[in-house]
């Protein structure tokens, strides 16, 4: 669908606004190599993006966002700190809702600056809020860093923590794993039988395929070690549940998290960062007393945020997708940086939705 002049004008206005804040204007190819995205997100990306094949370049994808190419660009340029802005179309398959646009303009503001992460979080949020100034929108925020810190702080095996970290963005599997490790969910009969067997391979069929006998044995050893490890204490699981259930204004959440940190000191740094962020936001004129905070905000698959997360929603239009979204993605830069990582935070605005709300 061609972009309307009004949307193009709005996109230009937003990009100029971000450029005036010192962001360098960058561009990215519409067709991106698909391999990076498949490595990051797996097969789910096929349900959400337009993949196609190029006879020489292999699988390509119509860019579903700018973040990945901008991170790649930044990691090659190696100039820290840096701020970038861009404006261009992104493409998303809409498998379940035909009324949602499958191509639309995004204008973004990305900050690569490790000096003061809380300050950079606030800078991006405030820049996006400024872009939406005067519109009937409300902000939702969260912090995946708190949940990740809580998982790291569990008194349990490293294998269990790694499994939970791997599924941070898949709430259902995360909950199931936590239930299993906490002894709340019964061990499946098949596993009980496997661990009780004198010879687990007695009924094994022929060794076929690439996954070797040694790999199967290694997993059985891991399952035995897991069965021998004590369950995660109920109090600790209750603390994780309490973090996930948080749904209050930011100052209330901060005070609740401070209480939780008494029992779970591992989240102390993450809570301190939340506090510093709220101060920075306040310094930038954001009314943090009314700012909503949700403990499980941003935990959806196909996301890469691992710290501060936020979204802006049209107040009277719950049917619309968020007008703007953003967050911190330090881990993504580590994955794309081949050993190098740069703290990074960014946000995007959809000018088409802005225009729709302005008139």
């Amino acid at each position: 669908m061609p972009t309307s002049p009004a949307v193009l004008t709005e996109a230009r206005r937003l990009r100029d606004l971000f450029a005036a804040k010192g962001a360098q204007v960058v561009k990215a190819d519409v067709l991106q190599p698909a391999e990076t995205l498949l490595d990051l997100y797996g097969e789910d990306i096929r349900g959400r993006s337009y993949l196609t094949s190029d006879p020489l370049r292999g699988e390509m994808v119509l860019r579903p966002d700018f973040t990945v190419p901008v991170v790649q660009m930044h990691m090659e340029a190696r100039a820290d700190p840096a701020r970038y802005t861009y404006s261009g179309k992104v493409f998303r398959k809409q498998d379940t809702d035909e009324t949602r646009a499958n191509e639309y303009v995004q204008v973004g503001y990305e900050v690569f600056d490790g000096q003061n992460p809380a300050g950079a979080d606030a800078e991006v949020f405030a820049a996006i809020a400024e872009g939406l100034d005067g519109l009937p929108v409300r902000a939702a925020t969260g912090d995946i860093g708190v949940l990740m810190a809580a998982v790291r702080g569990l008194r349990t095996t490293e294998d269990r923590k790694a499994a939970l970290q791997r599924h941070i963005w898949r709430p259902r599997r995360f909950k199931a794993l936590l239930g299993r490790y906490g002894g709340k969910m019964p061990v499946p009969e098949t596993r009980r039988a496997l661990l009780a067997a004198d010879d687990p391979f007695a009924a094994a069929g022929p060794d076929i395929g690439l996954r070797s006998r040694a790999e199967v044995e290694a997993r059985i050893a891991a399952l035995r070690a897991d069965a021998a490890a004590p369950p995660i204490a109920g109090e600790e699981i209750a603390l994780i549940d309490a973090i996930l259930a948080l749904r209050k204004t930011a100052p209330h959440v901060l005070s609740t998290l401070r209480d939780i940190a008494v029992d779970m000191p591992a989240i102390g740094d993450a809570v301190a960062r939340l506090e510093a962020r709220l101060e920075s936001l306040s310094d930038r004129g954001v009314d943090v007393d009314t700012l909503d905070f949700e403990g499980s905000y941003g935990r959806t698959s196909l996301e890469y945020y691992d710290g501060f997360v936020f979204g802006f929603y049209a107040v009277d239009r719950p049917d619309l997708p968020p007008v703007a979204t953003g967050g911190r993605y330090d881990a993504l830069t580590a994955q794309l940086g081949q050993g190098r990582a740069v703290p990074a935070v960014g946000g995007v605005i959809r000018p088409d939705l802005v225009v729709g709300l302005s008139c």
Partner: protein
Amino acid sequence: MLKLGVPSKGRLMEKTFDWFGSRGVGLRKSGSDREYAGAVDGIDGIELVLLSAGEIPRELASGNIHLGVTGSDLVREKLANWDARVAELAPMGFGGADLIIAVPQAWVDVDMLDDLDAAAAAFRARHGFRLRIATKYHRMVREFLRDNGVADYQLVDSQGATEGTVKNETAEAIADITSTGETLRANGLKILEDGLIHASQATLFRGRRAGWSDEQRQKLKALQMVLGIS
């Protein structure tokens, strides 16, 4: 006139003719055996269209046919958001087959999706690529694994002899249709306990595309009365 799409050959066609016939609606091919034209006896205003079972979901969704008989698996695989585009009128009790996930019997540590997910994580770390699942049912498998939180796998396309892909080392696991599981066992594979993606059977569908005339609606009602499925 209501257009009814029915599989154009094989057992699926014969069973469909039997199903309608035993309910008082005669379906038959007209003309020579090679022609894909049909005739309907016992009720007026229904036109029989003989099509490949795989094309019936698309034709229903586009409104080219109003009613159609095909496998419930094909509708789910070929139509995004299938239940907004077609409606199930009657399961027909034949053509049953299960879409399942199967892994080598040698994987004694893998019996559930939970195990598959853990094995996939370890496999990727060890081999440097995501564990491959061979299938031709990409949409259904992907949605099933996403809903169940399985990660670190990839789907590789296999349009036939899927059971052999593990032995041939072009995949580590498969997702395929089976009715008895015999071929799977013969190929050294076993079905995951919670790996049933969909229990498919031949089903009579109605297209949901808007724009039916009153006459067509009444015709459908009349047909449902005759078939005893209203």
